[in-house]
Structure formats: C-alpha cells, structure tokens
C-alpha cells in the first residue's frame, strides 16, 4: 500500500472531496448551497472548509445578497492543482489494483 502515501492528506475525508468537486466546477458557491449539496451540518462543514482554507486550497469572501450576508467560497490555483493530482493518484490506484 505504498502508493497510498501519494494521496493528499487534505482530501482524506469524503466531505473534503465533495467540497472540492463542487468548487472545481463553479466559480463561487455559497455556504448554504454547499451545506445542501453535501447534506452536512453547519459545524461539520465549517470545520472542513477551515481545514481546506488553511491548506490554501480555497478562499472565501463575505457578500451581501440583498440585505443578508452570505459567505461564498471558491477554489485557488493551488487547490485546483492539488485536487487534480489527487484525482490522478486515485485513478492510478484504481487501475493498478
């Protein structure tokens, strides 16, 4: 199982894979939509988002939609590269076994 070492630790959980896949195909995604898409609780989602943000893979900004504040997330260049690498590793692993 040596190949597993190439897997990116930041994407270890299903939740983080989910967050990254949604952000890869959308310019910006709001917290509420992420929560709905991934069926996660506020706290759980926030924790995973923070982890990805600390890894510099995603950024966020606060916006106002009408009068309501909304946090929208997007993926960074680093995040894109890292996620693509991770997918390639996954693919290799599946083909190899």
């Amino acid at each position: 199982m040596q190949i597993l070492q190439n897997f990116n630790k930041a994407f270890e959980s299903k939740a983080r894979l989910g967050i990254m896949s949604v952000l890869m195909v959308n310019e910006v995604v709001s917290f509420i939509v992420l929560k709905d898409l991934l069926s996660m609780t506020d706290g759980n989602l926030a924790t995973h988002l923070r982890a990805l943000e600390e890894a510099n893979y995603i950024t966020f900004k606060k916006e106002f939609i009408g009068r309501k504040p909304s946090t929208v997330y997007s993926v960074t260049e680093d995040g894109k590269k890292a996620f693509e690498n991770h997918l390639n590793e996954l693919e290799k692993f599946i083909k190899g076994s």
Partner: protein
Amino acid sequence: MNEHLENLKEIRSLMERSSKFLSLSGLSGISAGICALLGAWYAYAKLHVDGSSLLSIPEVRHEIVPKLVLEAIVVLGFALFFGVFFTVRKTRKQGLSVWNKTSKLLLLNLMIPLCAGGFFCLGMLYHGFFWLCFPATLVFYGVALVSASKYTLHDIFYLGIAEVALGLIALFLAKYNLICWAIGFGVLHIVYGSVMYFKYDRQESEIPK
C-alpha cells in the same frame, strides 16, 4: 478500493449536480400557469362571443387579432414577472445571486428556441395564419424547455416533451386549439409547479439529492 470507487462516483455526481441551476421555484410554474389560464379564458370569451368561425372573415379578424396579441403580451408579462420573482426569492434564500454562470447558461438555452418561436409566430400573424400560432407557441416552448433541461432540474425535460406533444395535437386537431393551449400553458404549469414545489421547495433541504 471500493471506497475509492465510491468516492469517484460521488465526485462525478456532485460536479454534475452543482453545475446546474437548481433554484427554479415551483411557485414560478404555478403562477405562470394561472396567468395562462386567465389569458386562455379571456381569449375563449372573445372568440366565443364573436364566433370562432368568423375568424375567417378578414374584417373581423383584423378587429380581434390585435386584441388577442395584446392580451398574449400582457399574459406573458405577468407570467414572466411572477416566474422571475419566485425564483429570485428562492436563490436569495440559498445565499446566491441569481445572475451566475448556471443561470446564464439556462437562460441562453431557453431563449434561443423561444425567440425563434416568437418571431416565427409574428411572421405567421403577419401572413394571416392566426390559428397556427397556438400549436407553434406550444411546440417552440416545449423545445426550449427540452434544450434548457440540461442546465436545470431534469424534470423540465418531461414538461417540454408534453408541451411539444400537445402542440402537435393542436396542429392536427385544429378544433382543440385553444383547449390544448390552455392545458399546455395553464394546467401543465400548475401541475408541474405543484409537483416541484412539494418535491424540492418544501423540503428542509432546498436542493434535490
């Protein structure tokens, strides 16, 4: 191994689902349907009072047709207004702005067949093929929905097919023109809107799984 395959499947489905415009409100459909039914009722009253057979007499046609066209524009205006209103409300609830990549794609794919149909009908009116406008609007609208269905809730695909079918029925059974039109734009919208409302809007989670 299986776990990774599962993950890949999940990634694919998330990517596909999240790149669609999923904020169409069922209430938009219901309100558009009600507008259409009121419009159809008005048209029926006009045609009925004046006698639909009279439409073949040019002088009468000249009198009624502009009224009906004006009425159609008013109905379209109200339907669009309420339709946009409820959908904008839903996107706001989701913390999104309405004008995003997915909504643009959706609009583009909806508008191409729809505008083509609109001009086609104006052309037919110009040449005096008044009754053909009923089936034509249904068919073009159905095609527009089918083309837009790739960018939003897939349920719209079936609504589109139903509209096209009704349009073709109206074309060959010209007697049932207005009835088909009322069913297509009125009843189907209300049915579709209610189904969508209970399927998606009412749930705690606003986005289909």
